[in-house]
């Protein structure tokens, strides 16, 4: 398990802010994740020991799980995995739409989130798309919980 750089670059932070905002968007005139400032909490979670994999058993060999139920088996930390997702999403946006993920129309961004959720996104291997979706959702829920669970 390598230790991820705890510092998010500005561009990565913006990508994650948009992703989390699509998971918890503005609704009925009430602010979404971005306007609630949840990205600050997300960034803090990514720097936390748990997300950095500091309490993770790193003894080898790393082997693929034979079936569901074996939990985290990646040599990457969860934070490293999330940073990979952000990179892959941005590369996809440039490749498919000629511009970075940030600034794409919400409909296009939602399509990307849907592709992560249903596993059809082609630009990720470790983490797999569905795992990437679960990681982003966990970040949202942790950030929302730590921010007072606003509705």
């Amino acid at each position: 398990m390598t230790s991820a750089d705890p510092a998010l670059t500005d561009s990565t932070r913006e990508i994650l802010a948009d992703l989390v905002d699509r998971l918890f968007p503005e609704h009925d005139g009430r602010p979404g994740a971005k306007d609630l400032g949840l990205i600050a909490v997300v960034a803090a979670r990514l720097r936390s020991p748990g997300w950095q994999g500091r309490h993770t058993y790193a003894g080898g060999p790393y082997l693929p799980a034979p079936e569901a139920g074996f939990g985290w088996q990646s040599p990457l930390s969860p934070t490293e995995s999330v940073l990979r997702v952000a990179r892959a999403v941005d590369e996809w946006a440039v490749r498919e739409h000629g511009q970075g993920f940030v600034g794409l129309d919400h409909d296009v961004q939602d399509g990307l989130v849907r592709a992560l959720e249903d596993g059809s996104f082609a630009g990720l291997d470790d983490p797999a798309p569905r795992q990437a979706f679960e990681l982003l959702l966990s970040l949202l829920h942790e950030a929302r919980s730590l921010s007072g669970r606003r509705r």
Partner: protein
Amino acid sequence: MRSRAEVVVVGAGWAGSIITAELAAAGHHVTVLERGTWPAGAGPAGFVTDDDGRWPSRQLTEDARLETYTMRHRSGQASLPIRRLNSFWAGSTVGGAGAMWSGFSPRFVPDSFRSRSAHVEAFGPSILRPDVRLVDWPLTYADLEPDYTRFEQVAGVSGASGADPFAGPRSAPYPVEVAPDSVDAGPWVAAARRHGLHPYPRPVAGAGVETVNHYGLTRAVDPVRGRSLATPLNSVLPYALGTGRVDLVEGARVRRVLHDGRRATGVRYVDADGEHDLEAEVVVLAAWALGNTRLLLMSDVGRPYDPETEQGTVGRNHANHVGAVSTAWFDRSRHDSSAWRTGAWSMSDLAALPEAGRPDYVGGAHLVAGSVGPSDLSTDPRIPVGSPRWGAGLRTAIDRYEDAGVQVGLLGEVVPHRRRHLDLDPTFRDPWGDPLLRITFDWDENERSMVRSVARRVSAVLRDTGADLVDEGGVLPDHYDVGPYQNSHATGGAVMGTDPATSVVDPDLRSWDIDRLWVVGASAFPTAASPNPTPTVGALSFRASRSIRRHLEDTEATDPPSDTPHRRTPRRP
């Protein structure tokens, strides 16, 4: 440098702390070896939180880098390490798992101690599936009752004496009595009674008032949670240390029980200064169910269990609890909060046996009910199953339903199965080069049937509350999953019994194989039963402490002459 102790206790959780306190009170000298340290922030209220207020504090749970377990679902499958400990937690500080338990304190019902007999009497022998190894305990509820009372007095358990019609007789009321009509019932309790269930206020080792236990220790009320939490840190250890006869060694990780093949002679442990051997007259393992079993296996004490031949004892009858939840949801635009505001209630109707008729499962099902609310164990929003997971749909579900529900949780007994067991992993090791404990465990058809059956039963009640939606639950995943938190109720591995061929310890938790060794905790449970295990662990600890005292007083440190391999004759409790 320590080189000899009268008694060495491995682990300072509930079991180790109670034994230490009882022996010290009787004038004996005890050295406690604990791999962790006293947790920062532990106070008289008992809840140890992180800086952001989250409980339990991360410092209380074992760091998987130092010790974890490997998992496989069945024999023959390659095991993989549980790299992030989450589906269950092992304690990592002084106080052990007792520093981070919920405090829920039901006793076992009497038939839980005679599980096999009770099932056969009620349903005939055909109720037992071929691979299920349901057994009776080597002691009865009546045998353990005085020690349940002792634990309740130490832990200051609050409850409603006499409110559970299925409970065994009590020799004393709860230390803190709760009037059933003082607990918010909501519409749910009335519905449960209409459907033939018998809810009673959930017993908790923590009260909404300051309490003093019989060790003279005071527990304060946590201002955030409105109650205290009894732990070894605020309820036992300060007394034990105050006797002046207890040496608590923090940061000491025991690797082996030392023995000469006949009797225990001490332990080997590592700390920041290196590795040490500590001789002792008596060795007590109190390192949680999985830790006790691993130490026995690594120390060549007893014969490892073989699931193919069913020979051997160490590692057998590993069990656990299966959890499931059924929930009634109330759209907050149509209901006021009184519809879903319910206190914590338990039910023992199914605690030892399925209902009369032709059940399709065996084992007990302890039921608990209460309002849905923020969880210490998950940050996921509490909304109906099947709600959209993101976007506008998620926000709508949160608006309507978040926390607006009543849930009934099942704590289901995972019955012993010949193939669920513990042994040493052949591949994965800890930082000291010792093998990790391998868990062979998966859900069986019995758990699937239990969860399905109980979910149907309680969902009928929930539909009768006027709820808009009911999530029946009742379906287990394809396999046991080490991802989401479930419970930390591992049992077995060093079970008690009257036959050394099928048990590791006798009814006083004394090793059959190695003299002067006691193995204490849920490792000794022959069956998991359905209620939370801690009060029974506490009661067994008092029982074991008397056995150790008898040994110390009988021998007065005089070695019994013997030149034959040791194996004691079984005796009835």
